[in-house]
C-alpha cells in the first residue's frame, strides 16, 4: 500500500514523502529531496569565477583562473558526493530493527541499521536528525507511524 504526500523543508524546497505499508509490522518511509537547481548552480559558479577574475586582475597570474575552474569542478563533485541528498529512506521492521538509508546525488548510499533491542523509543529531536531537513509536519507523520509500529512490537513482545 503506497501513499504519497508533499511537504516542504526548512529552506522552502519541496519534499515528497512516500509511505509504503507492507504489513502491520513493516513500513517504509521514503523522502525525496528536490534536485539541484540550475539557478543555484549558475549563481555559485558565476560568483566563484568573478572572484577569480578579480584576483587575476590584481595579480596578473593566469594560474588563478585555472585554479578557479579546478576548484569549481572539485567542489561540485564533492558537494554531490558528500552533501546533496537525493533520497532518504526509513525502513522499520517490527522484530528486526530500523534501517536508515541516505542516497546522495552522486549515487553513494550510506546505511545505518539499528537493532530493535537497542531501540528504546523514537523521538523528534530538536536538531534535525534527517539530512534532508524536513519540517515538523513531515516529521510528525513519520513519528506517528513509527510509534504505531513500536507499540505493536511491544504488544507482541509482552503478549503471549
Amino acid at each position, binding site marked *: 500500500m503506497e501513499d504519497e504526500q508533499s511537504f516542504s523543508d526548512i529552506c522552502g524546497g519541496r519534499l515528497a514523502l512516500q509511505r509504503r505499508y507492507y*504489513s502491520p*509490522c*513493516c513500513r517504509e518511509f521514503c523522502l525525496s529531496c528536490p534536485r539541484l537547481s540550475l539557478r543555484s548552480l549558475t549563481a555559485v559558479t558565476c560568483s566563484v569565477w568573478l572572484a577569480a577574475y578579480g584576483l587575476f586582475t590584481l595579480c596578473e597570474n593566469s594560474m588563478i583562473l585555472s585554479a578557479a575552474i579546478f576548484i569549481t569542478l572539485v567542489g561540485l563533485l564533492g558537494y554531490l558526493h558528500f552533501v546533496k541528498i537525493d533520497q532518504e529512506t526509513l525502513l522499520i521492521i*517490527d*522484530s*528486526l530493527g530500523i534501517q536508515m538509508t541516505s542516497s546522495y546525488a552522486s549515487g553513494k548510499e550510506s546505511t545505518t541499521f539499528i*537493532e*530493535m*533491542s537497542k531501540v528504546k523509543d523514537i523521538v523528534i529531536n530538536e536538531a534535525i536528525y534527517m539530512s534532508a531537513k524536513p519540517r515538523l509536519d513531515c516529521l510528525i507523520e513519520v513519528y506517528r507511524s513509527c510509534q504505531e509500529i513500536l507499540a505493536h512490537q511491544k504488544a507482541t513482545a509482552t503478549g503471549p
Partner: protein
Amino acid sequence: MVLKAFFPTCCVSADSGLLVGRWVPEQSSAVVLAVVHFPFIPVQVRELLARVQQVSRVGVTVLGTWCHHRQEPQESLGHFLEGLGAIFSHEPWLQLCRERDSKSWTCKATRRQASAAADEDQVLLIFYDQRKVLLSRLHPPAALPDRQAGDATPSARGLAAVFDTVARSETLFRSDRFDEGPVRLSHWQSEGVEASILVELLTRASGPVCLLLSWLLSLLSAVSSCWVCRLWPLTFVGSKLSTCEQVRHRLEHLSLIFSPQKAQDPTQLMRKANMLVSVLLDVALGLALLSWLHGKNRIGQLADALVPAADHVAEELQHLLQWLMGAPAGLKMNRALDQVLGRFFLYHIHLWISYVHLTSPFIERILWHVGLSACLGLTVAVSVLSDIIALLTFHIYCFYVYGARLYRLKICGLSSLWRLFRGKKWNVLRQRVDSCSYDLDQLFIGTLLFTILVFLLPTTALYYLVFTLVSRAVWMLGLGLDTGLAQAPAPGGRRAGPDPSARGRGQLPAPVLAGPAAVPALQTGSWRQVPRPSARGWQASPPPDADEPPALQPRDAHLPPPQLRLPPQALVELPVPQALLRGAHLPLEAEGGQAGLRDTAAVRSGPGTLPSRPTPSGTGAGPAWGTSTAHRSWGLGAAPCSCSSPVCWGLPLV
C-alpha cells in the same frame, strides 16, 4: 505470526533443492546456510548434517525446500518437493520459490499441527551476504566447552545469533557442489573463492618464494653473527654506527615478513601487513631519493662541497684555539699549560685535516657507493648521513673528551687534596669520609700539590667549557637527524624515542661541574640523559610492539630501570656542593672501579697510608683498571675515577 527467513545472496541463483540451516525458535527466524541439490539420498544428507552438528555444535537441520524454475513451471517438481516435507519433518516447513528471471518470490511456511487460531505464517525474507557475515565477528566468543553439543549459546540475542550461526558453521562450507561427495551443496564457496588467475598464481608462488627469501635472510644473519664479527673492535664500531643498527632492524623485519609460518590470528596478520607496507614505503622513498641524488651530478657537487666545509670548520677551530691561547675574555691563563694544551689541540686539527685531504680524491666514489644504500630504505640513508656527519666531526668529539677527562682528573685531585687539607680521608671500605692523621711531610706535599692544582684550575675549566659547548652544538645537529629516524615508521625507525645522548661516543665519566650548573647528584634519571650517551647499547631486546609508533612508547620502555645510586646515608643530608665534593656524584662505573679498588685496597694497605706512589702505572691500579675496562667504550682509557682513594693522580690516562 511473522517468520523471518535469512537467505544468503549467493543461493539466489542456485538450482532447486533442500534448504539447510538452523531454526532459532526464540526469534522465530530461520537462518538458511546452504542448498542441497538433487539428486541426493536422504540418509546421506542426514549423516552429513549430523556430522556437521557434532563438529560445529550448531543445530543444522533441513528447513524446507527451494524451488527455482528455470523453465516453465513444473508441476511434478512441486509435488515432489511437498513430498520431501514428509521425509524431513521440520516445524515450520519453509517453501521458497522463484520464477525464472523474475523479481517476485513465493514464500510459504506451513505448520503440520495447524492450531486453531493459526493462519498461514507471514514470511519476512532477509538477504544476507554470507561471506561477510562469516568473516565479521559481531557475535559473542565461542561457547564454553562444558556446553552440550546441539545448540548455540543462548546468550546470543537478536542478530548476533544469526552471525553466530553462520560463523560457526564453517564445516558445512567445506564441500560444495563441485566436489565429488555424496551430497552437493551450494553456498558462498560455490561462487568461487578467487576469480582471478593472477591472484591464484601469486598465492601458490608465495610459498616457495617466502621459503627462499627466509633462507637467504637466515644465511645473512648467520654470517653476521659468526665469530669474525664478534671480535671486540667490530662489535664496538657496529654498535656505535647507526647504520649497522638500521640494517639489522631491516633484516629483522624482512625475516618476519617472509617467515613461512602463517599468522596465527588477525593481530599478527595485521602486524605483518603493517610491516610489509612500511618497508615498501620506506624502500619507495629511498629509491626516490636515490634517483634524485644520482641525477644532475649531485653527488659530485656534494663531494666538492664536503672538503671545503671540513677545511672551514678546522679553520674556525684553529681561530678558537688561538683565542684561548691568548687572553680569552680577559681572563689570565697559566701560560705554560695554555700553550701545551693549545698546541696539542692544534696538532690534532692539523692531523685531522691531513687525513681529510688524503681521502678527498676518493670521496666522490665513496659517496656514490654509499648512496646506493638508499635503495634499502630512506631510514638507512638517513642513518648513513648521520654517521657521516659523526665521522666528520669526530675531532671535535675528541677534544671534548680530552677536556672532560683532564677536568675530571683535576677535580678528583682537588677534592682528595682538600680532604687532606682538612685532615680527612675517604675510606673506600666504608664508603665514607674518615678522619686521618697525616705526617708532616705528607701534609706539606699535599698542600703544595693542592695549590698547584688550584691555580691551574681556570685554564682547564675554560678549555673544558669551550669544548663542551662546541661538541654539544654539533650534537644538536645530529639530534635533528636522529629525531627524524625515530619518527620513521615503527619497523624502520629506531626503538627508543629521541634520545638526547645518542650522539655521544661512549660512556664518559660524568663531567663534574661544581658550580651552580651542577646536575644535582641525587637525581638519578638525569645522569642517564645528558652525559651518559649509551643509546647504542640498548638494542639488544627486540621491539615489543612493532606496530606501535615509537613516539607513543615511554622512552625507556624496554630499558633496564635506571639504576638508583644512593649516596651513603651521611651524604644524603648534605647540600649539593658538599655532597659532590664527597663523591656523591660518582656514577656507576666509578662504583665498579671502586669495587675493583676496594679489592686491591684491602690487599694493599690499611687505612691511613698513601697506597701508591705517583707512578705512571701503579701496580695497585692494574687490576682495578682491568675490571673496569669492560665499561669503557672508546678505549681512551678513562680510568675509574678513584677520587675516593686518597691519591687519584696515581692513575694515568691513556
